[in-house]
Each structure stands twice: as structure tokens, then as C-alpha cells.
């Protein structure tokens, strides 16, 4: 008697089929293609290097690019509407789809055309995912696929929160909290007093965290309330910036002056922040969009840690210690991205 195969294909196809119908994009061939893409994106690697391409599937690329403010489309190839074509698209385009580039697949009558495009050029631009999520249902024939955590792929379409396809052994009711990065961004800007500047800072932070956090092998962030001191335990080995990097000021300058000099300065500091996030130790931010310190280490009292934190490695133990500081009111929040790409954010038990 042979072993009984366990497959999730039928369930996945059914969910994708419903999703396409809800998005007014029903098509059997597209359904098959999305299944292929979702499985591939769950752990996509080239030459052993993990890649995190975002894939935009649409019916009218030019219109969709204007809506999401994408530009510089480059066509890489085309083929019939088959899983082979999307595999080829992924193979050829995924190595290109980083540093602000994403993959597009346009559906035509009997074929898929594919290539790459530039995501919004300006660092304060609204993120691709945010723009599509914010659209009214069925406003456009478009959907966005991306890996949001190891083994987990998200598909969204206008006004449709979409699907989280979990291909790991994780339980279905433990859905990946895609919003953890957003929470970190929201803490980072919440005390920027000017409403419009705060929105610009949030757009910047949303895009920046999405790209920067995927560069390294994990990150740990502590967010201090504006005006509050950095907890002493975080300062022992930290590199505390004599003059905090004030992203709100950089963003204000870029918007008001609109010069290439101001843009270059913001991009340079964004790059620097990426370096800090990938450095050893944790990065300390505050709630007015400033970077206060990096390369900070926190000693954890293992006696108080949970079993999960104890087996989770140094970064998880440090994160647990930061959570203690959050509960003690010394931090606004704590964020971790583990080396395998799982995010967690904590703002204390008293907050929502």
C-alpha cells in the first residue's frame, strides 16, 4: 500500500479562483499562473540568494502604472497564457526586481507579456501596496503578489484585502501580521506634529522599511517616545548619534525645495539607515522620525524570559528584553525581523 499524498492544491486553486472572481479578473489560465507564482515566491532564490520580487498582474499596464506612479517599464518577454510563461517571467525578471524595481505581467487576449518597472521614484511616494489596497473595489484590473514572510505569499487587489497563502507548516489561524512593519513605521512618525509632513514621513517610512529590512539578515528596533530618554540599558555599547538623524527635516526639505540636492541627501540618509538596521545590535528610533543610536546591545535576564525567547537566539532574547522595557513604559515599541524573515512588533499590553 503506497503512502497517501497530502496536497493543498485543490484548496489553493479554489481560494485563488474566488479571489479572481472578487477582483473581476476571472480566468482559468490566470488562476493556474497565480498558483505557480505563489508557490515559487514562497521561498524564491537565485544562486542560493533569497529574492523578494513584487509582481503586478494587470490588464492595462499603462493605466495601472499611472495610478501607482510606476515608470520606466521594460518588456523582457512574452508567451502564451500558461504556467510556463510566468515561470519564465519570474526566472528572467526576479534578479532585476530589487532596489525599487518590480515585475509586471500584463494579460492580453491569448498571452502574457512581462517585464520590470520602476516603483515610484521619490522616496516619499506612496508605496505600491498601499496604493492598490486603497483603491475602490474593482476600480482597476490589477493585483499584487509578494512574499510577506518565509513561506507566506500575499495577493491583494483593489479594495480586496486578498489572500495570505501559507505554504509553511504554520497553522492557518496564525496568519502573518503583514502590518507589523506598518506599526513600526507608525510609531516612527506618530509625534511629527504637522499633519501633512507626518503623512509624507509615514509614506517614506513604509517604503523604506519594506526595502531596507529585506536587505540584511534581520533587524531589531527600539522606538523611544519623543522627549523620553533612551533607556540606560540600551546605551552601554551603543553608538549614540551626537546629532540625531532627523528624517522629518530631510523630508520637509525635499518637499519644499524639490531640488536634486535635497533628494540626494534624503536617499543618502535612507541608505545609512539601512546600514544601521543591518548592523549588529539594535537601532534606536524616536517617534518624531529621528534615528538616535545604533549598534546597541541589551542584556537579557534569561530567568524572566519565555521558553520561546530562550530558544530563539540572541536577537529574540534581546527582543524579549525590549518588550519588558515597553511594558515598563520606557519604550514606545519594539520590533524584530528575525533572520528567517519573520516580523514581530510589540507596543505593550495596555495598547491596542
Amino acid at each position, binding site marked *: 500500500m503506497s503512502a497517501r499524498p497530502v496536497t493543498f492544491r485543490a484548496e489553493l486553486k479554489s481560494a485563488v479562483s474566488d479571489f479572481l472572481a472578487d477582483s473581476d479578473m476571472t480566468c482559468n489560465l490566470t488562476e493556474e499562473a497565480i498558483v505557480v507564482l505563489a508557490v515559487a515566491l514562497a521561498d524564491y532564490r537565485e544562486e542560493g540568494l533569497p529574492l523578494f520580487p513584487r509582481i503586478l498582474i494587470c490588464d492595462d499596464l499603462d493605466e495601472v*502604472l499611472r495610478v501607482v506612479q510606476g515608470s520606466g517599464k521594460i518588456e523582457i518577454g512574452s508567451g502564451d497564457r500558461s504556467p510556463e510563461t510566468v515561470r519564465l517571467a519570474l526566472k528572467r525578471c526576479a534578479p532585476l526586481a530589487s532596489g525599487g524595481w518590480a515585475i509586471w505581467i500584463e494579460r492580453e487576449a491569448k498571452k502574457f507579456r512581462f517585464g520590470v518597472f520602476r516603483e515610484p521614484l*521619490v522616496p516619499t511616494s506612496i508605496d505600491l501596496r498601499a496604493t492598490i489596497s486603497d483603491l475602490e473595489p474593482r476600480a482597476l484590473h490589477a493585483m499584487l503578489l509578494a512574499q510577506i514572510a518565509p513561506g507566506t505569499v500575499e495577493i491583494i487587489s483593489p479594495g480586496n484585502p486578498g489572500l495570505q497563502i501559507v505554504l509553511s507548516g504554520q497553522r492557518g489561524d496564525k496568519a502573518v501580521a503583514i502590518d507589523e512593519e506598518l506599526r513600526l513605521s507608525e510609531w516612527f512618525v506618530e509625534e511629527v506634529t504637522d499633519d501633512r509632513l507626518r503623512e*509624507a514621513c509615514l*509614506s*517614506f517610512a513604509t517604503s523604506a522599511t519594506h526595502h531596507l529590512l529585506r536587505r540584511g539578515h534581520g533587524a531589531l528596533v527600539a522606538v523611544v517616545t519623543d522627549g523620553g530618554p533612551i533607556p540606560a540599558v540600551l546605551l552601554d555599547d551603543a553608538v549614540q548619534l551626537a546629532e540625531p538623524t532627523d528624517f522629518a527635516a530631510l523630508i520637509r526639505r525635499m518637499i*519644499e525645495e524639490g531640488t536634486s540636492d535635497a533628494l540626494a541627501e534624503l536617499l543618502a540618509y535612507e541608505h545609512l539607515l539601512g546600514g544601521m538596521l543591518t548592523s549588529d545590535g539594535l537601532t534606536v528610533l524616536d517617534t518624531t522620525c529621528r534615528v538616535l543610536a545604533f549598534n546597541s546591545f541589551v542584556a537579557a535576564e534569561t530567568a524572566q524570559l519565555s521558553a520561546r525567547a530562550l530558544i530563539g537566539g540572541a536577537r529574540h532574547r534581546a527582543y524579549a528584553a525590549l518588550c519588558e522595557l515597553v511594558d515598563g513604559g520606557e519604550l514606545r515599541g519594539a520590533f524584530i525581523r528575525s533572520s528567517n524573515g519573520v516580523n514581530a512588533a510589540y507596543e505593550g499590553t495596555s495598547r491596542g
Partner: protein
Amino acid sequence: MKGPLVADNSPVLWSARDIVEVPATAVTAADIASMAKQLSPRELHQVIQTFDSGLYEMGATFVWTRTMAGLKRQLASLGIDFIAEMLDRPDIRADAEIHEVLTDFDAVRLAEELGMFGSSHALRLRHALETVTHFADPPSDVDDEGMMPEEAIGTLRTCVQTILGHDELGVAVEFAQFRKRLESEVLPDAAPEIEGLANSPYFFKRTVLRVLLAGIKTASGAQLENLLANFNTLLPSLWPGLMDPDRHMLGRGYAELHADGQSKASSGVRSALLKVSGFDYVPENLRSLTFLEAAARVLGAHFGWDNFHTEPAPMRALASLGSSIPIHAFAKCMTAILCVRIGNPYGVSFDAQSHAIRMLENVTRERWAYFFDECLPADDVLLGELTNETVATRWCHVLIDIERVQELSLKKKSSRTFLKASFDGDVAAVQRLARRRSEALR
């Protein structure tokens, strides 16, 4: 002023405010200047003395400078961001000083659009600007006798009637009230204002949309929500009659809001543009802004002092941006380039010509057709220039020299008529058609 832009309960069209009546019997500088409320007694005395001494250039220049200072001060009270939006000048920053960025020509144009005076007085003010500019920096062939007394008195009369004779802030306060209403109330779908707007002159529709967009770019909280709601209510009824340059202006507005990370504002504008299938007018990036800024500098030089010497540098800068003008900046760039080519009643800037000619040579046949069908009918600047006989004559000569304009296939009969008159060298017809089109916008 006869009424607010939109009255409380019924649609009332915007109309020019009453000018200061200067009786025909007032013929001396003393008679006319005495009605200038914005001049101090000391300034009045000096003006009268200068005119009486026959120093007409000096007197007219002083009166003009004071007039523009008063006008720009009133306009500044509306907010620099609003001024930038009304003039479609993305190069004007929020912290800019209005006297540095707003040319006299633009100030007159804007004031006319806001109903501070009617088109006849706007025409007279533009003529006064040309006269003062000409004699302030006379070309080599200037009339030896200089400015005539009737020219100086005419300038003084027009300045007093339109600006200097008024108390300050009248328009600014009323316009601020109108803006406040758009910010503080949400118009219901069946509001009488919507029907009123649909039957309004074109410039008024454009003004309302620019007011809304300017507000959306700066407001926050409840004000922003009201503005977005009103934008979504009004745009569908205004869109069908909206000309391409103004559609592009709205499309650029969306791109700017998106780039600035204004999620709420861009979401509202996106929603309105999707309702009217307006995303064809949204640029993929903000490259067009660079062209718009360069074109604005050319126009600033063209309508400024000493234009024959100041036009070449900005014209060269515009040409250096490349021959492929983004469609979203095309109309404004064509206005600037053609203004350089057709000059003003006193001539052209010779050193700027080669750059302008080169740019026009690179305009494709399709783009020329687009220009005549969609851009020129909405171009109040160029149409205004073509009402002058000398300029219209030069326009005809300029067009005949451009090979790609020959045998264009134009969609609109009015465009074909205009082009034929230009090729036939029928200057009077060009002037008449330009005037008619210009009036159709108002």
C-alpha cells in the same frame, strides 16, 4: 465686485468688480491721481509734479510700480500656494516672496481671472505694461520724443481705475470666503452651484478646480475631507468640457500628491480621476515639472523688463532639456517658445530665436495638430498676444516657415479656420479669431 463666486443659496456667476469711475472730464494728472486711494499724499504730490514737469516715463514707471506692488500685495494675501496653482507654476515654492516670483504680466492675468477687473481693463493694463517696459529700456530705434503725455496719462488712468483707486483687500477677502466655503462645507450632489458651474464661463470652471486643487495640496483634517468631497462632486460635471492643458494640470496634481506621500489627498483625487477615466492625463513621473519650470522662466523673461536681453538664457535652458517635451508640459512649453518667436509689438529677442526655432523644428506633425486642436484654444496668454496686429503679423510669418505645420490634419473646424487665416497672412482675421477665442474662455 458684484457677488461672491458662489452665493449662499443660488448660483451666482463670478463677475468683475466695479472699477473706480474716473470721469472723462478728469484729464490732468492731478485730477486722476487724486482718486488714487493707495497713494500717500507725498506720493500723490510727487506723481503730479513729475507729470507736470513732462517727465512722463518717470511718472508712468512710478505709477506702474506702485500699481503692481499694490496688486501683488493683494494677491499675496490669497496665499502663495494658491497663486502657484492658479498660474500652474510648480516652480513657485510655498516660502517664495511674491514680488520675486510673480511677473507683472502674470499678476494682471491672475487678477483678471479672479474678477478684480474686466477684460477691457486687463487689456489696457497689459498695454500700459508694454508701454512702460518699452520706454523704461528703449531699443535703439526708439522714438526720440519718448513717451507721449497721452500715453502716460492713459497709464495713470488705467492704474487708478483698476488698482490704485480701490481700498485694499476687497477681492482677497471675498475670494478667501469662497475658498473657505469650499473647505468648510460639502456640496450636496444636487446643489444648485453644480448646475451653475456647468453654465459658467470656462475660466471660472478652471478657477474653481484650481482653487480645489490648491486646497487639496495644502489642507489637512476636516478641511481636506471637504475639499476632496467637493472635488469628487464637481469634477464629473466639469470634466467633459475641460480642455487638455487643464486636464493635464489635474493629472500632474495627482502625481505630485502621490510623490509627496499624501495618502489621503492622493486617494481622493485618484477616486475622482477614476470616475472620469482621467488617468490618461496623469504623468508616470514628474519629469514634466522640469520643463514647466523652464517654460515659466521663459515667460517670466518675455513679459518682464528688458525682455530682449533676458529671454535668451531661459530659452537656451529650456532647449537644453531636450527635444522631446513631455506631453504634460507641452502646452506651457509651446506658449513659451511661441511667445519668444512672435515677440511683442516692439520686436523680438534675436539671441533667443535660434533656440526657439530649433525646438519648434522638433515638434512632430501630430503634436502640432494637438497644439492647434487642444492647446491653443485654452491658451489665454498666446491668444491675448495675437490680438495685437504687429504680433499677429509676425505669427503668420513664423507659421509659414515651419514645414511640419503645412497640410496639418486638424479635427476642429475652428482650428482649421484659424490656421488657414494664419497661412493666408490674413492678420485681421487672426486677430479677430484670437480675440473671439480668448473671450470664449471668460
